[in-house]
């Protein structure tokens, strides 16, 4: 699936998007996989309460299932307006 990062999450990980092949069943399981990869991921995902997630461009929860999801995005709380 395509994984997108925005704002300081993008900066910490060092790229705006990447393709990841994962069997993770939920968002949280994918986060655990990413954390275990490298320090920059561990740093970006250190505090989940400071992050939001969208699945196929809709806001979702970290316990949401990933079955059928094509695009997942991680970002900080939004500051529009």
């Amino acid at each position, binding site marked *: 699936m395509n994984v997108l990062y925005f704002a300081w999450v993008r900066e910490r990980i060092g790229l705006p998007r990447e393709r990841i092949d994962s069997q993770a069943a939920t968002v949280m399981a994918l986060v655990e996989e990413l954390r275990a990869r490298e320090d920059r991921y561990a740093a970006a995902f250190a505090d989940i309460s400071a992050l939001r997630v*969208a699945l196929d461009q809709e806001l979702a929860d970290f316990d949401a299932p990933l079955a059928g999801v094509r695009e997942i995005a991680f970002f900080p709380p939004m*500051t529009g*307006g």
Partner: protein
Amino acid sequence: MDVRVQDAAFDPGAELASFAIGRSDVGAVVSFTGVVRDRDGGLQAMEIEHYPGMTEKAIATIMAQAAERWSLAELRVIHRYGRLGVGQPIMMVLTAAPHRAAAFAAADFLMDYLKSRAPFWKREITADGADWVAATDADETALTRW
């Protein structure tokens, strides 16, 4: 419903002048313009990042919710991204309704939701560097009003 997410500057006066004209069912038009403010002095620019694709959908969803709640004739939301100078308009919400209560309430609702449910992230550029603007508890609390 009209959603515009754009890099280009816009003219709030021209937007208002072209909004909901020639309709016999509109008795009230409300507009809100958000402007880049120098909070602490020394702001050189505001950079706004967004999530192309999701941004337009999220705004349309928020507008549809407003249209369900209030009797509205027309809605328009314009939101810029990219680099903006102090005093430049960031975004604009326009609502038209038969009555002013609905036009005011819908504009207020749209602003509260655009602040924390539309995927934009602001970064302030000063001589000391760049800082992401943090969302506040007040932004989230504002949603409980609705």
